[in-house]
């Protein structure tokens, strides 16, 4: 355990958590107008209708797997199933979901690059997000496939290292040593994952935080009183009112 370990596994996660939570609150308060999926289906529908569901559903299975693997201590599952069975299930389900996610996003990125209008509507911000997102998925798969052995050939079970560390974060006593004992594959995957979390509030990924589950419960017809906000004469530039001919994404941000 050295200073770098402490910084990466003891401090960084909290910084990222702050950025994530703080960023979401900031964006929610100041930028409701920018909070959208920024759908590109108007431009292209055929590939999106395959790629997007495959990616999202794959991703949800992957996320569920992460939650199970990280939150449920090994000691608990050991009571029910053997480590081998657990690993087999996790490995197969995880790989299938991971491959689906990856195929989905590859298709989405292919579509984005090859469909003119979709590409034109892609910002620098989007590009950065795709790089980090794909890296997280790819390193995740590398970790799953090869991360269970150190370069020296020693068996390392992530549920005895990464998971222990992850849970320790929540009681504010980060078990830096546990994480430091993991393999480089997991370390890289986690660092990229942290970068992704830090990016969420500032990219289109925010859309995931307003999953409209309340749709299941709200009445169909919504009555609302007139807003009290008074329309003001505005001479400055107002968002959403750029003149025709302005490209979807400013060249500066592309």
């Amino acid at each position, binding site marked *: 355990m050295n200073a770098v370990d402490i910084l990466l596994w003891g401090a960084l996660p909290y910084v990222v958590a702050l950025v994530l939570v703080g960023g979401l609150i900031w964006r929610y308060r100041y930028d409701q*107008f920018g*909070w959208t999926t920024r759908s590109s289906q108007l431009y292209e529908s055929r590939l999106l209708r395959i*790629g997007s569901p495959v990616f999202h559903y794959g991703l949800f299975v992957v996320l569920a797997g992460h939650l199970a693997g990280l939150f449920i201590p090994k000691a608990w599952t050991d009571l029910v199933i053997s480590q081998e069975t657990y690993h087999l299930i996790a490995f197969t389900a995880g790989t299938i979901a991971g491959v689906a996610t990856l195929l989905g996003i590859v298709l989405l990125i292919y579509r984005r690059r090859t469909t003119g209008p979709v590409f034109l509507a892609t910002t620098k911000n989007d590009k950065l997000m795709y790089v980090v997102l794909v890296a997280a998925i790819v390193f995740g798969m590398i970790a799953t496939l090869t991360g269970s052995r150190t370069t020296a050939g020693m068996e390392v079970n992530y549920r005895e290292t990464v998971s222990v560390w992850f849970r320790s974060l929540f009681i504010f006593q980060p078990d830096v040593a546990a994480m430091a004992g993991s393999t480089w594959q997991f370390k890289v995957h986690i660092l990229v994952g942290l970068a992704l979390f830090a990016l969420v509030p500032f990219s289109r990924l925010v859309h995931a935080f307003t999953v409209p589950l309340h749709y299941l419960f709200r009445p169909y017809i919504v009555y609302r009183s007139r807003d009290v906000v008074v329309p003001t004469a505005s001479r400055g530039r107002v968002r959403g009112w750029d*003149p025709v001919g302005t490209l979807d994404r400013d060249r500066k941000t592309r």
Partner: protein
Amino acid sequence: MATRKLTRVMAQVGMVMNLDKCIGCHTCSVTCKQAWTNRAGTEYVWFNNVETRPGQGYPRRYEDQERWRGGWVRTKSGGLRLRSGGRFQKLLSIFASPVQPELADYYEPWTYDYQNLISAPLGDDFPVARPKSLITGEDTKITWSANWDDSLGGSTATAELDPIVEKLRNEANEQIRMEYEKSFMFFLPRICEHCLNPSCMASCPSGAIYKRAEDGIVLVDQDRCRGWRQCITGCPYKKMYFNHRSGKAEKCTFCYPRIEVGLPTVCSETCVGRLRYLGIILYDPDAVTEAACADEKDLYEAQLDLMLDPYDPQVIALAREGGMPDDWIEAAQRSPIYALAKHFRVALPLHPEYRTMPMVWYIPPLSPVVDLLTKQGHDGEAAGNLFGAIDTLRIPVSYLAELFTAGDTQVVTGVLQKLAAMRSYMRGVTLGTGRDPELAAAVGMTPDALEQMYRLLAIAKYAERYVIPTAHREEAHNLEELACSLDYEDGPGMYESGPFGEASGRPVPVAIETYSALKERQRADTAASSEALQHRAGMLNWDANQETER
């Protein structure tokens, strides 16, 4: 039906369009676009569009609900269900909308490279202004537009795709011919219907679409919309549009900032045919769902039943109880919408079978019948001919019935006969051959009523066509004049892109003009003196009172 006890009364703004007067000039569409959708991201968006019928409409074939799945359907148990599916189904398929019009179903918006006309070097060839796509900025080929089949242009090739033409052909075996002597046509201007039972709203997972309790205007909260786009599928009239730049849904706002100060909507104000009427109606919000569940053929009547008599003391009492100001009740009594839709029963809803209870009403055109008569060598205006023709010329009537009464030709025939009777009666008056009470009696009206209807349809002045109570924002209005635009000048919203790309910054209240000032200026006798309003002439607020600058 009338068993329900009335407990609440609400107001709804509505519009009536008298289709016989529409000359298809598209002024309404153009002025509306200038005012609201002349922006990046909404180039293809027409809150108001004018389509030629028979024709495919905009977007293409939007009435084909088998394909587009808009509106409501009645379930076996008699309840209502969104045609596009239940709540779970919608959430599960949210990652890519299963039914969603693409740009190709609208058209690829374009502009011309006018610059080339002046900057091209001298040469033997005339310089041309090439069409450029407003989506990609590249050269483009224009293949369709919002009114490609205007005035039946190219209709021999495309009108067969009109869903109503198709339906009449397949179900009633009625061929609509596109040869000149056998064809008919009329224009159908369309805006959002500001429905009483809007399926756009019901489809929105975020609950961002709402109906204003005071006037029933349906709006999209731009801050709450997350771009799930279910509303676009949900609206059977396809009057919900996706702004591809902001990633939000947008729709006709009934020009609410103008309506609030008592000004008519831009499309009404600028209508060349002066065929639009604006007013409010009072209705029972608790009866809407039940009315929307009526049998298809009863939907029109059910919709009329929702409109309450503004002179009924109980209605007035309940309206007051709910906080409705007296001038609103008075406006409801003078409402041309109530008069034309319910009192005279000549205005019909567009596609009541979608069950959204639309609130823009249409007086069906008599002109297709007159035209066909004239083309066949008859006097299209003579009462005898006209009455006979309404009965015998099945095609225009069944076509109109598919549009306005879910196929019930009787209702349409009734309305057309009233219009025909009015024409012939007034022809008698003008030619001095006398007032023929039999004509009125033949359509179940009195001569007085017929003349009243004539006045409302033919010569109603501005103040009679637009009866719009204001929003009582006197105080707010003062604030408005005080508010300094500098408040926003340096806000992060000033910039196209904040530090985090397209998506940072604070929203600024949407406004393009100080409407109360505009109203005052428009109605004033003297030139505008307000310093603050100078340099602000635009096509829409130019009032001839203003000094021209150049």
